[in-house]
């Protein structure tokens, strides 16, 4: 066992293309899911490829890539471990299965190249986890996009990687296929103790899956932190626009069977959500979009809105014309509300003011 101090994922390098330079210096926890988030062209995929060794960083840029104690690249000592000697699992955007092999052979390809003593994840476990048992004997060319991507994830996991790299595994899929795969990715998170780097440009995916986020903007890291915190930081573009919203980690505290509601508790209070078939005490992730939160100065009583939380205004920031994004603190849990500028003036909202947040919609994201 390596000492706990070394359980970090460190990546420092520079990569120059004509008209684009990616320069990062990342130091992330060596466990859980870290999302590389940014617009297309921000350098997310390049970043993942350099960490995998598929793309070489600029010569003599003092690059250094260390994953939980394994040094994969270190320019100072001239070390560069070739891709095939790195204990990575890599899932490409378009699955990239071997078309000349069956599903089972695709899985075996990586697995058989790992020494038996290094195999920590059993094939059965992978097959069950991704639900691909029914098409093990099919040719990979006959699979649907969603099935292909599940096989690709299984194939990567079957090598018992020390780091799983996912390059927008859902980007090429329609909404239905995405919904088909997301539960498998969540299970991955909960069932395997494996650090994951997940490239995405979809905030809802990241909210569902990622523990921490790296925001990339035009080749630079603009922010690093817990997903929950970055989602509500008004100085970041992530906390603006129609899709902006807060992420709440809550636990199930009760059920109101006659109303088909489930109660969830978090440090800032309690919420009622649509009935969940889960036991009391189980944790879940909730997403509350800023556009679904309105503010009142006094708690409303004669209202159909069930979820009303006492909060404090933390900061205000202009959003789209006429709209203001308000950062709120609900007993330590950050929330966002998007309201009109007129309402801000009418309620005289300033940082520090105690108000009530009316939550119209809560999405369960995991």
């Amino acid at each position: 066992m390596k000492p706990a101090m070394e359980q970090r994922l460190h990546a420092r390098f520079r990569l120059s293309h004509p008209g684009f330079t990616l320069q990062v210096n990342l130091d992330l926890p060596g466990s859980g899911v870290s999302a590389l988030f940014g617009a297309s062209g921000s350098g997310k995929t390049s970043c993942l490829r350099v960490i995998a060794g598929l793309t070489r960083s600029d010569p003599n840029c003092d690059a250094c890539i260390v994953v939980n104690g394994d040094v994969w690249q270190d320019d100072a000592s001239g070390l560069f471990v070739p891709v095939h000697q790195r204990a990575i699992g890599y899932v490409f955007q378009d699955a990239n299965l071997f078309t000349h092999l069956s599903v089972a052979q695709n899985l075996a390809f990586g697995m058989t190249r790992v020494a038996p003593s290094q195999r920590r994840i059993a094939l059965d476990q992978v097959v069950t986890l991704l639900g691909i048992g029914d098409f093990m004997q099919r040719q990979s060319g006959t699979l649907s996009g969603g099935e292909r991507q599940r096989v690709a994830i299984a194939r990567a996991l079957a090598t018992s990687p020390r780091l799983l790299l996912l390059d927008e595994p859902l980007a090429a899929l329609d909404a239905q296929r995405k919904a088909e795969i997301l539960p498998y990715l969540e299970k991955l998170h909960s069932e395997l103790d494996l650090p994951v780097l997940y490239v995405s440009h979809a905030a809802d995916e990241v909210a569902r899956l990622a523990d921490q986020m790296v925001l990339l903007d035009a080749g630079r890291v603009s922010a690093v932190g817990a997903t929950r915190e970055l989602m509500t930081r008004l100085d970041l573009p992530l906390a603006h626009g129609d899709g902006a919203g807060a992420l709440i980690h809550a636990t199930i505290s009760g059920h109101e069977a006659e109303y088909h509601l489930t109660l969830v508790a978090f440090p800032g209070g309690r919420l009622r959500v649509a009935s969940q078939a889960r036991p009391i005490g189980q944790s879940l992730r909730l997403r509350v979009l800023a556009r679904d939160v309105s503010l009142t100065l006094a708690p409303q009583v004669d209202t159909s809105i069930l979820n009303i939380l006492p909060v404090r205004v933390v900061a205000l920031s202009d959003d789209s014309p006429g709209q203001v994004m308000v950062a709120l603190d609900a007993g330590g849990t950050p929330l966002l509300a998007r309201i009109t500028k007129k309402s801000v003036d009418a309620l005289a909202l300033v940082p520090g003011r105690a108000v009530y947040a009316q939550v119209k919609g809560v999405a369960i994201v995991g």
Partner: protein
Amino acid sequence: MSMAYGGAVALTLKLAGLTTLLLLLLGTPLAWWLARTRSWIKVPVGAMVALPLVLPPTVIGFYLLVALGPHGPLGQLTQSLGLGLLPFTFSGLVLGSVIYSMPFVLQPLQNAFEAIGEQPLEAAATLRASPLDTFFHVVLPLARPGYLSATVMGFAHTIGEFGVVLMIGGNIPDSTRVLSVQIYDHVEALEYTQAHWLSAGMLLFSFLALLALYTLNPSGRRQRGPQR
């Protein structure tokens, strides 16, 4: 067909088989390099190996004859190595055929390698396969249609060659007298019946070869060798 042609048929098949085998062995690394390199040398090298497509076979044969002859640089080399002189021998014929049929093997292989692209190679690397391992277990299986095309085209084309053979091989029974030369002899001697027998045989063989190629390899039409 009378047994008199047995020698010519066996010689032709031996020449074509050996030439194809050598070309597949030589062509694989060369085609791989041509498909992958970004060096400027790629273009001149590609043009050079494609030369037999445009040159009259007699020109190739002539220069080979000069180079391999007693005063040519290659001839002096083979003599100093104790191999003797290659013109008018079976070995010389193989050498000429390898050069002449090169593009017909090289181009299907190069096309096949290029069609595979970078992605399967990257996937293999992330699955712990070394470059050599990847070549044998990913590239070769994926390039199978290209190899089929290359084999059929190289073999059939060598069987059909005439100009190079005549220039550097001459017309020695059981040594350099291949089918195409035999046909020429018959026509010269006005033995049209015999010429018909052999020509029809070659026609049938060529047709069957292409038929087999297109049947086994439906996508082969896009990967076949260059047209003359």
